[in-house]
């Protein structure tokens, strides 16, 4: 087991969350806007070729934050354009992130079905 792999994931993942925390505290952005901003930043950084090195370096430390979702969308679109041509721009992103979106919808619906909010019941 390579312990440094975990250290890199911890430090990079933690640092990305600190950026979010500063946006939350200082810029007073709402949580939804922060998520949208991170997805867009992840996609843009990958388009510029800057997010892949971070993934290679930090593994899950760069993939788990929601910017990694933006990265996966952009990466999927680019790879699919390479394989399928123009239509790949429309299929690649969702294709690459299908497992995550499907899991969130299915598990999310089931969890909400069985759960009851603590306060506002």
């Amino acid at each position, binding site marked *: *087991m390579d312990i440094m*792999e975990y250290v890199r*994931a*911890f430090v*990079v*993942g*933690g640092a990305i*969350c*600190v*950026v*979010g*925390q*500063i946006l939350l*505290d200082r810029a007073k952005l709402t*949580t939804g806007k*922060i*998520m*949208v901003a991170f*997805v*867009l930043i992840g*996609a843009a950084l*990958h388009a510029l070729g800057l997010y892949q090195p971070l993934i290679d370096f930090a593994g*899950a*430390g760069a*993939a*788990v*934050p*929601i910017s990694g*979702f*933006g990265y996966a*969308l*952009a990466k*999927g*679109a680019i790879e*699919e*354009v*390479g394989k399928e041509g*123009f239509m*790949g*721009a*429309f299929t*690649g*992103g*969702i294709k690459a*992130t299908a*497992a995550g979106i499907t*899991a*969130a*919808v299915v*598990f*999310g*619906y089931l*969890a*909400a*079905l*069985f*759960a009851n*909010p*603590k306060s*506002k019941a």
Partner: protein
Amino acid sequence: MANIKQLKSQYQQIVKSHSPKNNVLRNSLRAFWVGGTICIIGQALTNVYMFYGMEREDAKMLMTVTLILLSTILTALNVYDNIGQYAGAGALVPITGFANSMVSSAMEFKKEGYIYGLGAKLFVVAGPVIVFGTIASVVVGIIYYLV
């Protein structure tokens, strides 16, 4: 007169000690270690799946699915919101925060029914994320096609 001034400053001290502190450093430390720990869990899951013979890309995908599953369960048990209160962006920014936003907004609207309550409110926060993410991926794809 001096007495009033003294009272005023005492009052201001009391107000200060009772108003919530916007402690950016403390919040950032909490976000750092909780967010980092969630990423370590993600890394460990990826490595376990690869150990059992999965390809790296598949292992990463299953890791994401697993984290989402764990997050929805913890949200349903009202545990994830407590983590969020403590860690702020440390619980919000990881993909688990995305899944948490879906469940927590949906379960508040359960009484509006299983279709328009649960089905629609899942996407209160997740909707914009998926909308702008999808648009971004198409834009990146088209630019890549043209360049």
